[in-house]
Structures are given as structure tokens and as C-alpha cells.
């Protein structure tokens, strides 16, 4: 005779190492099996969209740093593209290349954290994470050279970047780009065929192609489900149409595929950086833009492929010095839409891994 059980509600988070910030889930369990979950947001809600309505267009850039704070360069990039689209500003060539180099370096740094934190969730407690941080540190050093900051860079400006990179940046970048493939190989040797990782991640938390598209998933989550969709290729912004790179995709859409896609994308980012370093022209790094930008009345939506997915800014201008409305399309929040379908029927320990494989930053979810 089957034992009669009653559903049990388990609260996960908001302050717990596996929740990547202050994210909270209310999980309903039947024994150890997840019956239902309800994500609870808002612990880091700062009202960025409302704050933006009271700031000048340039004054919003530091706010964007604090959205997805582990890929601040990408946030700057998306926001500046939106204002440039709205105001019709042309960016100098050299600035475009610097932006692409920074965005791709930031992508590698963000994926290092994503992969490291994912392995943390798998139970490889902090050893792989520190391996990843060893390399991320070098990228952060590069960013410190150009912006003086190590987390919230505030480096890009409407019409370019705040200043040209210093002389010592190029040899350091060259060294990083030459060394990095060896480290990615090292991660592969260490992890790719690791028995524990395979057992815990293969076939776990499958998100089918149809589900992923229907739930508006983007970025590595969408690509791991087998959809070849990368905004850098599908709708090239800035100068991405000048570079050669591949879009890695998964086949099954399980946690392992999401992990693999991120590792492969690091290699592709390095390819882009190498090409950009070879092509970069000299010249000014910032267009002539007035201190107070007053875009004409209208609206614009610009999007980029951030490490999390499609990051977009929807701006409405009323010809004043501050936007009338500034909406942020948060890939982290929207990627979580399918979480409920992905975890039902799995055990609590798998719930942590599936959630970790989506890779979120709470600063961007709550804004």
C-alpha cells in the first residue's frame, strides 16, 4: 500500500548561497520531489526605471551598471545604443571596436562566473569557482586599467567611450588572449567528462525548443535548447557584422547543454576579440555630443546579446533632458518564466542545479 503523504512547503532563500543573490522560491514538495514552485521577487527592487525618469541621459549610465552587475559593460553598451538610436548619434570607428572588445571580455568574465557558480551548485564547492576567478581577475584588471573600476565601470558614453584605453592595455590584452584558450582547455579536462557533473547535469531540467521559444527565453538558455538565435548574428548591432564567429547550440536543452554552450561561447568571444584587435583603427573615441542630450520626440528600442540573453532598452523621449520612459528588457527575469515547467518532477537537489544553469543576476530581475 502506498504511503499517504501531504505536500510540504519549503522556503528557499532569499539569503542562501544557491540563490545567486537575494532570490526566493517557495517550493511545494511531495517527499523529496518538487510538485510546484513559485518564485518570489523584489528583494533588490530599487526602482531603476522610475529613477531614470529624473536623470539626464548621461546620468543614467551608472544606474545601468547596477542592473546585471557582473556584466556592467554590456549594460552600458545596450543603453548607449538605445540613446544613440533615439538621438541619431554616430559613433566613431575606434570607439565601436573598443566597445566590442570590452563587451566580449565582459562576456567571458560573466560566463566564468556562471560556469563556476553552476559547479558550486553541483556540489564541487568553490574549487572550480576559484579556478574561474583566477582568469576573471585578469579581465577585471584590464577593466581597471581603462576605467579605474573593478565592478561598476561606467565606461561607455553616449557617442563612444569615456576615454581611450591606455598604452599598457594592449600588451596585457594580447597576453590574456594568448593564454586564455589554454585555461579553457584546462576547464574542459577538469570538468567536461567529470563523472559527477555528467551524472548530475545530463538529462536534467530539459527545456524543449518549443517551450523555450514560447517562454521568450534568450541567450544561452535558448541556444542550449537547439535554437540558433544570437542577436549578434540575427540582428547585428554596432559592428558585429564584420566579425567571423560561430553560434554554439545544444541538442537536448538540459543543464549540461547550457553549461557547454557557455564554455564554447568563451572561445567564440576570444575569436571576436582577436579580430577586433587586428582591425582597430586610430582616431577619436567619442563623438561630439552636447552635455545635455535632448533627443527628438519619439521612441527607440535597442537590444544586445548580453551574457544572459536579449538585453534591451526601450526609451521614450519628450525632447527634454531626461527620458519620459525608460524600460529595461531583463533577460534574467524572462528566462525564469520557464523555470516552473523545468523543475516539476525533479528532486530538491536538482532544483538547485536547474536554477543555477539558467544563470541569473538578481540586480537585473528586480531592477
Amino acid at each position: 500500500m502506498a504511503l499517504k503523504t501531504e505536500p510540504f512547503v519549503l522556503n528557499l532563500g532569499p539569503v542562501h548561497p544557491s540563490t545567486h543573490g537575494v532570490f526566493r522560491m517557495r517550493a511545494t514538495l511531495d517527499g523529496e520531489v518538487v510538485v510546484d514552485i513559485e518564485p518570489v521577487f523584489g528583494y533588490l527592487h530599487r526602482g531603476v526605471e522610475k529613477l531614470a525618469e529624473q536623470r539626464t541621459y548621461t546620468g543614467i549610465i551608472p544606474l545601468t551598471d547596477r542592473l546585471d552587475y557582473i556584466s556592467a559593460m554590456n549594460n552600458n553598451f545596450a543603453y548607449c545604443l538605445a540613446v544613440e538610436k533615439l538621438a541619431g548619434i554616430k559613433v566613431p570607428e575606434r570607439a565601436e571596436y573598443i566597445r566590442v572588445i570590452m563587451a566580449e571580455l565582459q562576456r567571458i568574465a560573466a560566463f566564468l562566473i556562471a560556469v563556476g557558480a553552476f559547479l558550486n551548485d553541483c556540489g564541487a564547492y568553490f574549487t572550480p569557482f576559484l579556478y574561474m576567478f583566477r582568469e576573471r581577475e585578469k579581465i577585471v584588471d584590464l577593466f581597471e586599467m581603462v576605467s579605474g573600476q573593478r565592478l561598476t565601470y561606467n565606461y561607455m558614453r553616449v557617442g563612444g567611450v569615456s576615454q581611450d584605453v591606455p598604452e599598457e592595455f594592449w600588451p596585457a590584452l594580447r597576453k590574456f588572449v594568448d593564454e586564455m584558450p589554454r585555461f579553457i582547455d584546462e576547464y574542459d579536462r577538469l570538468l567536461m567528462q567529470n563523472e559527477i557533473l555528467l551524472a548530475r547535469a545530463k538529462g536534467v531540467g530539459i527545456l524543449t525548443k518549443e517551450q523555450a521559444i514560447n517562454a521568450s527565453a534568450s541567450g544561452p538558455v535558448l541556444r542550449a535548447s537547439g535554437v540558433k538565435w544570437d542577436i549578434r548574428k540575427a540582428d547585428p548591432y554596432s559592428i558585429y557584422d564584420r566579425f567571423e564567429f560561430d553560434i554554439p547550440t545544444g541538442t537536448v536543452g538540459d543543464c549540461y547543454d547550457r553549461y557547454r554552450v557557455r564554455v564554447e561561447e568563451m572561445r567564440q568571444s576570444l575569436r571576436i576579440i582577436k579580430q577586433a584587435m587586428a582591425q582597430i583603427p586610430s582616431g577619436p573615441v567619442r563623438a561630439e555630443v552636447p552635455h545635455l542630450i535632448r533627443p527628438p520626440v519619439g521612441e527607440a528600442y535597442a537590444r544586445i546579446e548580453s551574457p544572459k540573453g536579449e538585453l534591451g532598452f526601450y526609451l521614450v523621449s519628450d525632447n527634454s533632458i531626461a527620458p519620459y520612459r525608460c524600460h529595461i528588457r531583463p533577460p534574467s527575469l524572462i528566462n525564469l518564466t520557464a523555470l516552473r515547467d523545468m523543475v516539476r518532477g525533479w528532486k530538491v537537489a536538482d532544483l538547485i542545479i536547474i536554477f543555477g544553469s539558467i544563470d541569473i543576476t538578481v540586480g537585473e530581475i528586480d531592477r
Partner: protein
Amino acid sequence: MTVALSGKEIANQILEKFPDSIIESSEKDLVVKSESLLDVATFLKETPGLDFNYLNYITAVDYYDHFEVVYMLSSLEHNHSLVIKTRCYDRENPVLPSVVGLWQGADFQEREIYDLMGIRFEGHPNMKRIFLWEGFQGHPLRKDFM
């Protein structure tokens, strides 16, 4: 390159099927009557050749005399996109039909609009505040919120 389809051309296609469903259209977007939103959205998603299977984002803007809700749709297969808008004139109790049944990706975004702008989406399975706590007074992204 994603092709932004002309709102005018799509509007003509929609008007053939649902006369009197569109308020205005331009090259960039088209504005749908809120009563016809679900019909138009279903048409856009299911018509072969359009196949808008991907909802990029939903957002709302407060223009004092009305709210405008903006939907950006894409087709990953054909790589084209379209912006549709709808308006809501009731400030006290604005209601729109929910599109969660068509695109699951609308789930959290509609809750966010309800939380911050105060527009209720009818047919949403879990219409409650998302960032602010239950019992919070007002909707902060409205222009008259102090």
C-alpha cells in the same frame, strides 16, 4: 538583419479579417483596439508567413490621458519583427486581455506592468504584484505617483 515589418501593410492584412480592429498604423507600428487585442495577437501568431512565435517584450507608458501598452513580436524562423500597441483610457480600473495563453513569456512581464503601472490583465493565471509587497499603495511608474 531582423526586418521590421511595416505596420501599415500588416494592418491591411488584419483589417481584412477583423474590420474595425485597428485605431491607426504607421511604418513603425500599429495601434490595436483593446477589445480586439487577443484576436489580432492570435492572428499574428498563427498566420503562416507571419508566424510571430516569439514575444520580445511588453511594456507600458503613462501618457496621462491614457496608458499605452507596447508589445514587440518576432518570428525566429523568418527573422522579422513587429511592434503592436494598445491603449487603455480608464485610469481608475484599467483592464486589458492577457496574452499569456499565446506567449508564456508574458507571464512575469504582465505582472510587472500590473505592479508598477496598475493595469490589470484579464485571464492571467496569477495576477498579483511581483516586486512590491501586497498592500503597497499606488503604482510607482504612473506619472502622478508621488
